[in-house]
């Protein structure tokens, strides 16, 4: 797959977007997001509080393992920001494979590549492949996100 590193997207960590993207011009194979981040304890605890995950047992050593879905959430954060996902966009499908437990404090890199970009009726459907590696260069998670956005806001 051809991979073109785009440098026109600037990551805005607070989740607020600026500018717009002509989604119709995004080609298959485009790296739409490439982010490095630390899975710090504060972010993981905030995530656990938000989803009220009862499978995390703080009294055990396993509490140093982040919930797998927190990896997905933090990885999607880069995609949401870098793709400048407009309001009204809907997340309609998700595939995830968790390949290795991730300890809190681990450095991760998520690369997101556009694998499909099509229009059906009044909506644009985009599929983004996610690849997350740890600082040992091991894959920890792979995924595929499908989003749907109105054509009228996706060709601005």
């Amino acid at each position, binding site marked *: 797959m051809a991979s073109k590193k785009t440098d026109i997207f600037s990551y805005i960590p607070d989740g607020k977007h600026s500018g717009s993207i002509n989604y119709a011009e995004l080609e298959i194979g485009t790296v739409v997001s490439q982010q490095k981040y630390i899975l710090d304890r504060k972010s993981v605890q905030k995530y656990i509080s*938000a989803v009220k995950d009862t499978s995390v047992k703080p009294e055990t050593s396993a509490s140093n393992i982040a919930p797998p879905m927190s990896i997905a959430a933090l990885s999607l954060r880069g995609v949401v920001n870098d793709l400048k996902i407009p309001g009204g966009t809907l997340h309609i499908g998700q595939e*995830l494979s968790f*390949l290795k437990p991730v300890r809190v404090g681990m450095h991760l890199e998520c690369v997101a590549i556009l694998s499909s970009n099509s229009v059906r009726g009044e909506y644009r459907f985009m599929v983004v492949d996610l690849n997350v590696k740890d600082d040992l260069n091991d894959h920890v998670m792979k995924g595929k996100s499908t989003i749907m956005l109105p054509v009228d806001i996706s060709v601005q």
Partner: protein
Amino acid sequence: MQDGNPIIEVIKEITSDQVLLYAEASGDFNPIHINKEFAEKSQFGRNIAHGMMVAATISESMSLTFGESWHHSGKVKIRFRSPAYPGDTITTSGQIQKMVLSEEGTEVKCSVLVTNQAGETIISGSSSVIISN
């Protein structure tokens, strides 16, 4: 553990505060989730919860059922069928559909489902995990 067995059920109430907290945790500030005026003009008529916040209950259920195996061999494939709204009570359930022996262990394939208090499907899909033989 055998075909037809249920996975551990998870029941949660979705609140506006939780949606806001998830927006902060995930960085997803799509106004459909957090802006009342924007959401009122949308096809939903009100704020909806983040799909991935609801999907987290599937991971929770699989983790409660299969333990750490979920962290290194879990797979999930889901469709977001309809939105969950603040005030909804969601139930996440599932069932073992098939168990396949391999050199790595036993792959346990499950169906997963998230419904609201009216029984409407919010998320449907499948998940799998490999457990030691």
